[in-house]
């Protein structure tokens, strides 16, 4: 695979605030090609907002965002669409199109960005649905007919529709049963290896962090501290200590 630049995403000096509340203040983050980076942090520290900022749904108050070598604020509409076809996003609450079936949800990005024949598109949608761990008959269902965990999987199937270069996942394994969550981790690993996929994954799931994340970014004090699990285990910050040495961390087999 030809590697253009080692940095897929690069954030410099990001500032985000809502009214008086400052979420990010001079946040820097570099994501390398082909890595799985996990983002953790307490509830309300601005993980989802950070993801929305990178994909352009939330405009930062200051700072620059570079994705695949392109400054996001200087893109023409056509370039923007081209970049958007190269990332897949799984939102925290699934965000499925409620008036489309699951299969149509998965096909929506394909229709927009490719010229596939309907038959192949049907087959691929069915494949993605099965790959993300849904039963085959889920394709014909509407989102309101799915369970919470199934919605997550359907959202994942849609995020994978175009086999993107970058996958943004907001708490993908929340609401999945442990076996399903482990399978999902494995699926992400497989895809990531074979495609050189870069994954930015917000998660509270310590098992996923251990199983598939190459590096972990911790949102703390309005910045992000990035390092491997081993680095963070040495960190003296009280929250990080608590996080990696708490009972749940011990159950996941880290920080013992």
């Amino acid at each position: 695979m030809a590697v253009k630049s080692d940095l897929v995403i690069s954030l410099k000096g990001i500032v985000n605030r809502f009214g008086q509340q400052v979420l990010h203040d001079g946040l820097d983050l570099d994501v390398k090609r082909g890595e799985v980076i996990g983002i953790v942090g307490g509830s309300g520290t601005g993980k989802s907002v950070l993801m929305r900022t990178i994909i352009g749904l939330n405009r930062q108050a200051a700072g620059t965002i570079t994705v695949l070598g392109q400054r996001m604020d200087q893109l023409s509409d056509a370039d923007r669409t081209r970049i958007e076809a190269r990332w897949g996003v799984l939102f925290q609450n699934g965000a499925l199109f409620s008036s489309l079936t699951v299969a149509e949800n998965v096909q929506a990005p394909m229709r927009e960005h490719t010229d596939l024949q309907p038959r192949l598109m049907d087959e691929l949608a069915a494949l993605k649905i099965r790959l993300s761990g849904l039963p085959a008959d889920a394709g014909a269902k509407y989102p309101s007919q799915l369970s919470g965990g199934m919605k997550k999987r359907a959202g994942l199937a849609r995020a994978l529709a175009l086999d993107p270069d970058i996958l943004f996942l907001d708490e993908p394994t929340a609401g999945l049963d442990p076996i399903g969550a482990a399978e999902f981790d494995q699926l992400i690993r497989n895809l990531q290896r074979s495609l050189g996929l870069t994954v930015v994954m917000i998660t509270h799931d310590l098992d996923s962090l251990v199983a598939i994340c190459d590096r972990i970014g911790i949102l703390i004090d309005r910045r992000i501290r990035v390092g491997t699990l081993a680095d963070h285990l040495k960190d003296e910050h009280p929250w990080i200590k608590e996080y990696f040495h708490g009972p749940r961390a011990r159950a996941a087999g880290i920080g013992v």
Partner: protein
Amino acid sequence: MSDPGWVKFTTSGSTAIWSCGGAWTIEHATRLDGDLTIPAEAISKTAILDLSAIDQLDTSGAWLISRHGKTLHGKGFAVETREGDPDLAALLKRVVETEDVLPVQPPQRNLSDKIAEVGAAAEGILTESRDLVAFFGALVMALSRLALTPWKLRWNAIFSHLEQTGLNALPIVGMINLLVGVVLAFQGADQLARFGAQTFTINMLGISVLREMAVLLTAIVVAGRSGSAFTAQIGTMQVNEEVDALRTIGLNPMDVLVVPRVLALMIALPLLTFFADMMGLLGGGLMCIALLDISFGQYLSLLNQAITVDHFWVGLVKAPFFAALIALIGCFEGLRVSGSAESVGRLTTRSVVEGIFMVIIVDALFSILFSYLGI
């Protein structure tokens, strides 16, 4: 980036070989789908899928290869797959092992299904009417229960709806009625002038505005404005499971959502109608002053001779009934929303159409009633 994906068919001895290479990704999937054929030369029953030259594979490419392998297998070939890269092999294995990938077929519909649909639609109308009547009954129950315990009414909600449906509607209601008054007076004067009965314009104007026009137009505007808003608000809450959440914390959606809206609209619509009466008479008056060459004082005294207070009451008394209908239908359709954003839209449209339709029907019934009573 790597080369676009390609596939070459060769035979070696009695073995058919498909060599694949390049990028087997979704951009090239349509072409590769067409290229992956089983040529006539492949007669012997051994096949090799040589994937060692593939340098980029995604699930679409893996799907094509897996499907080809299965097709060959189905035709009785002994298939051997040669993968290069282990990651690539792992992905392919995953795709191959994903069973029962059945493309979702849209259900076929034949004539009897279509006839059944007509029947189901008719039944739907009947059950909906029944449900609406039941809903009305439940509303009356809730109202009478709350009439005994008025401190349990949600006054904050009532006032907020009063503001949204009443106060905020003043400009549009005023404007429409003013203009309709102008138009009525102009058309009336024009026609009556042929009989030299121009002064009767004022009788016609006063009676039609007070008895029908003001209340009907106001009700139609309110159905479009507030009936739709009620359906959309409650419908969106329904989609977010907020209505279910209300029930689980022991709150009755009827008390919390429906009663305040119905009461607020029943207060707002008569007030709006009064305002509409005034604006209609004002607009018509301005036109009369201009066309009939009279002063404002003369207009008022002619109007005073032309109408009685009964005309005013006949119009106004209909307003609370129209309001109850509009609010009832708006809330009812909102609570019928299920799941999708599309259903919010569909039922909102329906609530407006049904609201206006019912208002006009009830208006006609009132006309019959009043003519019986001789008012």
